[in-house]
């Protein structure tokens, strides 16, 4: 029963993993909507900026981005705490993926809806926030759910920039005890449990959105 003694340390690591993941999801969601909306509704300048952001962060690997922000940026005078770097880079990365989801869902809102909004004399912003987004957001949820799991998994990489998350703790315990099988099995189970919880959470949000006041007629459509 040696593995029981690992639990307190691993649990503390899991807490760090959970908070970093949730923070990155929150910031990433803001970035995703900003970039996604800019791609669809923004003018030429805004949508080009958003396109560059998405291409750069989707086109390079997360670990390179993390190291770039952690090792390279301080050399030009910009430096953050490791935890801030971790959350920021993770958020930028998943935000880029999320913006594609937002863009896809927004552009799949039917043309008739836009025409109807126009006929009712809705402004562009009104159309976006009252017509397009409430419908599109429900379509985005399954993809966002996958992205949330992806964020949790990718958050393990922040252990490589010296943040004491679940993976980092597992590494330290393994270096002390050399009980690789026990430690890593527990860690894998820990991540699996966290993703199941995260999945359930995303389902709850999706269900709430479907029933919510922003989408009163969804139940009948």
């Amino acid at each position, binding site marked *: 029963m040696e593995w029981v003694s690992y639990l307190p340390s691993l649990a503390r690591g899991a807490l760090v993993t959970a908070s970093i993941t949730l923070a990155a999801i929150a910031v990433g969601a803001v970035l995703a909507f900003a970039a996604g909306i800019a791609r669809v509704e923004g003018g030429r300048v805004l949508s080009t900026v958003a396109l560059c952001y998405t*291409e*750069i962060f*989707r*086109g*390079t*690997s*997360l*670990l*390179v*981005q993390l*190291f*770039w922000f952690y*090792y*390279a*940026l301080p*050399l*030009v005078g910009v430096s953050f705490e490791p935890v801030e770097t971790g959350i920021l880079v993770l958020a930028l990365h998943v935000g880029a993926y999320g913006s594609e989801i937002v863009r896809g869902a927004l552009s799949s809102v039917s043309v008739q809806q836009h025409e109807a909004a126009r006929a009712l004399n809705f402004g562009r912003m009104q159309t976006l926030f009252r017509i397009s987004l409430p419908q599109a957001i429900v379509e985005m949820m399954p993809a966002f759910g996958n992205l949330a*799991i992806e964020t*949790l*998994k*990718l*958050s*393990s*990489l922040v*252990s*490589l920039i010296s943040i004491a998350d679940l*993976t980092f703790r*597992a*590494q330290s315990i*393994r270096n002390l005890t050399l009980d*690789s*099988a026990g430690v*890593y*099995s527990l*860690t*894998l189970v820990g*991540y*699996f449990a966290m*993703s*199941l919880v995260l999945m359930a959470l995303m389902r709850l949000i999706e269900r709430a959105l479907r029933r919510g006041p922003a989408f009163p007629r969804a139940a009948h459509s």
Partner: protein
Amino acid sequence: MMYGFEWDTATPLTYAWSILPIILIGLTVTLQAAAAGFAIALGLGLVFAMLRRSRIRTVSWTTAVVVEFLRDTPLLVQLFFLYYVLPDYGVTLPAFLTGAIALGLQYSAYTSEVYRGGIDAVPRGQWEAATALNLSRMQTYRDIVVPQIVPRILPAMGNYLVAMIKETPVLSVVTVLEMMALANMIGERTFEYLVPLTLVGVIFLILTLICSAGLHRLQKVLPKAGIPLR
């Protein structure tokens, strides 16, 4: 592989140019790892997809759980698991192979879903027709199912290949000397990380842009109705 190259750190540009040969050696390792990992993912994913369709409840259910587990846990931890635990049980593999297996395992969970989606998309009537024509299960797969699903699953598989290429830097933690590991080593010696890491980023960006352009073309070239195998 770090030696025999002169590093000219006078200006960022000459620096980048002088370390490019080293990074390109890393690029070949990156591509090899992704190719090996993808081969494993394609094979293992198919096995998972088949087992998932098994008529024996226990088999299909166990496979579903295994696939879900592989998909919901981080590549990094799976990699550590393979790298540290396998030797305890007498299986000692080179780091590169361990890395390729870890990549393959993680992505087999994704590819198995792609296969499953492709197989499920073949209409029921065709399976029934195949039964009516007295085709064996093997013949049904070979002559009816596979030719139809190949063009359907290729784009998705291509996307996963690109994603896998971008995940290979993770292998650097188990001493695989791919692009990013080399860039880090150069950075450690010159105390100048900005250029090597940016260079690696740019190469990844070019690589993914080429790959997605290629995939786009492939999608246009592929016949919609399917590829006959004979």
